[in-house]
């Protein structure tokens, strides 16, 4: 159908009046030139999809976290009939809770959402060499620590304000469309506020679905998106005495070592009035409790006298699912697997991918007036991969090189003492762009890195002989 449309457009230029008339009916809107710039001729914008009459495009966003909230807001602002289905409105998600500076600006977050501004970090090596990083931060730069229940609720409220319908319910399954432009039918249980009730079964017809329902996404299962490797992050919230809390006022700590985690790091992050001490692993999940004990031991002197007020664990995807999109269903956020390696950061990427996917739908449907198809949603994937692939790849390389073994971690911490490294790291973290620094400094950095790695490995060889 698409290639026919293309041919008739060309025919339009040189055609006789009869041909002219027939091509007008096929293309009711002139194709702008950039739409023709596609890799394959049979992938074309939804401009050839039928115009929807009498109503706007309906899109369901499953999941009301940062990804769902951002997607719903962008869809609603774009004039699309949006419903957002969230199963637990007051969900206090187990989460590190760190957001980069650019998220505050890009998503217009009010500053009172941020509990704490972290401006210093301490990296601690396996042999307890401690390095302070953050000297290079400018006064207005910080890492924001938020409470997920507050952030998620705020984004959902904004989506509601823009015109989205927020529904408290649990998505159960979806019926795939029988026809090319037939609607999807989603089945969900709507909760009516009664404690313990299973909810009322509701079905609804929608034209497109955004799966923002997190690491155990049901939407992903429905579209056979495939599985990913995931890390288990285990965290204990500990309330420590005020004088010890003073130390963590604006400082977060990262502990690296085989005792703390064989492929990740242990952390102490300050929260609103307590600290979160945790660790994670992909390859040694059964030993997570052992790693947690080791993390607590390494931070022992600094959290002495603290009381554990909550224990939580959650999965963190390690890489995107094999299929992030199927027909008119797209995955965003943790459901798609957009968590970076090395730092395990996911909130910003969830919100941004939700927004990008929604923007692609708004654009492909011309503000809800036309039906979308898979090609429009693939635009979101294309844009996402192009924009953030360098970031993900660099972090993957860093993880592979520096989280490999204790000598590598020692080298990592040594490198962090360097000011150039600190500046590069923070710039890329806070603004989410891989900035090429000066080549001379990069060369010096490369030489120093290799030197550190060689030294640490040499020491390890000697250690093995003892």
């Amino acid at each position, binding site marked *: 159908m698409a290639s026919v449309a293309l041919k008739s457009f060309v025919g339009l230029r040189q055609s006789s009046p009869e041909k002219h008339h027939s091509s007008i009916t096929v293309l009711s809107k002139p194709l702008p030139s950039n739409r023709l710039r596609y890799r394959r001729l049979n992938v074309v914008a939804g401009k050839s999809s039928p115009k929807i009459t009498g109503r706007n495009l309906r899109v369901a966003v499953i999941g009301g976290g940062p990804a769902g909230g951002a997607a719903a807001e962008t869809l609603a602002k774009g004039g699309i009939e949006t419903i957002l289905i969230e199963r637990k409105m007051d969900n206090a998600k187990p989460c590190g809770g760190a957001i980069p500076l650019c998220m505050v600006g890009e998503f217009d977050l009010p500053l009172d959402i941020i509990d704490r501004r972290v401006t210093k970090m301490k990296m601690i090596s396996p*042999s307890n060499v401690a390095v302070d990083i953050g000297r290079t931060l400018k006064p207005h730069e910080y890492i924001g620590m938020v409470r997920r229940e507050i952030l998620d609720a705020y984004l959902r409220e904004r989506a509601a304000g823009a015109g989205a319908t927020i529904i408290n319910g649990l998505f159960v399954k979806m019926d795939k469309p029988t026809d090319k432009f037939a609607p999807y039918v989603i089945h969900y249980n709507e909760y009516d506020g009664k404690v313990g009730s299973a909810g009322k079964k509701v079905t609804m017809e929608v034209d497109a679905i955004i799966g923002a329902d*997190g690491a155990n996404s049901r939407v992903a299962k429905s579209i056979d998106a495939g599985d990913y490797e995931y890390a288990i992050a285990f965290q204990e919230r500990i309330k420590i005495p005020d004088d010890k809390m003073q130390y963590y006022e604006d400082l977060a700590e990262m502990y690296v070592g085989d005792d703390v985690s064989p492929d990740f790091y242990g952390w102490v992050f300050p929260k609103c009035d307590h600290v979160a001490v945790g660790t994670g692993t992909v390859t040694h999940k059964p030993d997570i409790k052992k790693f947690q004990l080791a993390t607590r031991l390494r931070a*022992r002197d600094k959290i002495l006298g603290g009381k*554990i007020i909550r224990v939580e664990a959650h999965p963190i995807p390690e890489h995107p699912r094999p299929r992030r999109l199927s027909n008119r269903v797209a995955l965003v956020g943790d459901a798609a697997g957009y968590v970076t390696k090395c730092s395990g950061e996911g909130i910003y990427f969830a919100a941004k991918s939700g927004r990008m996917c929604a923007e692609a739908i708004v654009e492909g449907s011309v503000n809800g007036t036309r039906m979308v198809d898979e090609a429009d949603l693939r635009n979101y*994937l294309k844009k996402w991969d192009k924009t953030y692939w360098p970031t993900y*790849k660099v972090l993957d390389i860093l993880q592979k090189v520096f989280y490999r073994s204790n000598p590598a971690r020692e080298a990592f911490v040594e490198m962090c003492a360097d000011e150039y490294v600190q500046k590069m790291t923070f710039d890329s973290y806070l603004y989410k762009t891989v900035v090429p620094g000066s080549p001379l400094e990069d060369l010096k950095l490369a030489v120093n890195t290799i*030197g550190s790695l060689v030294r640490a490995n040499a020491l390890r060889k000697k250690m093995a002989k003892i």
Partner: protein
Amino acid sequence: MSSSMAFFSSTTPHLPSFSSSSKTHFPINPFLSLKTQRHLFVSVRATENGSGAAIALEVKKDSEVAEEGSNGVPVAAAVEELGVKFEDPKWVSGTWDLKQFQKGGATDWDAVIDAEVKRRKWLEDNPESSNNDFPVVFYTSIIPWWAWMKRFHLPEAELLNGRAAMVGFFMAYFVDSLTGVGLVDQMGNFFCKTLLFVAVAGVLFIRKNEDIDTLKKLIDETTFYDKQWQATWQDEKKE
């Protein structure tokens, strides 16, 4: 499931002793007893007595466990008290006191390296808490580059050069005996230069038998992440 049951029956003589020993542990701390066993037995136990609650924590995704047993317990008590810390007369305020490593008027860097190796080995076996009042400020970069060279690079370089020389001599003789081309003429030939390059690279990168597997794994690793990201585009090409 059936394989684990077969495992269970095949190790029946062992299992009763396990279960009797673990029964004493179980009431105290279910997690502790599971940790001390091998992962295999953990899965058998899960199928056997259904006390998979604890394992379910490990395996179940997205679990938010309410505090059990560690509710309100002060952190210090929950962590075993490890009284032993790393102590050494030459380790002063978080770094090696170079004045104590003097030998004949100059610092004995080899002894510093040895001391650091011992310290790291100790810490690997007995991890310590990091303390702000006694920070560790020793960086290996204070040891000068020539000390590292002399100690680590030179012996290895001697070994590798020796290997390269032996391989080179034998290959030169072999090629000469087969083709009659002398050493000087071999150097002018492209094929021989390629062989030389392969020999040098081989000696450099494959130092132990395990290195062949390591290199293969490394090559896979460099492209694995890319493949995972490209997976969603494979769908499009198939359509």
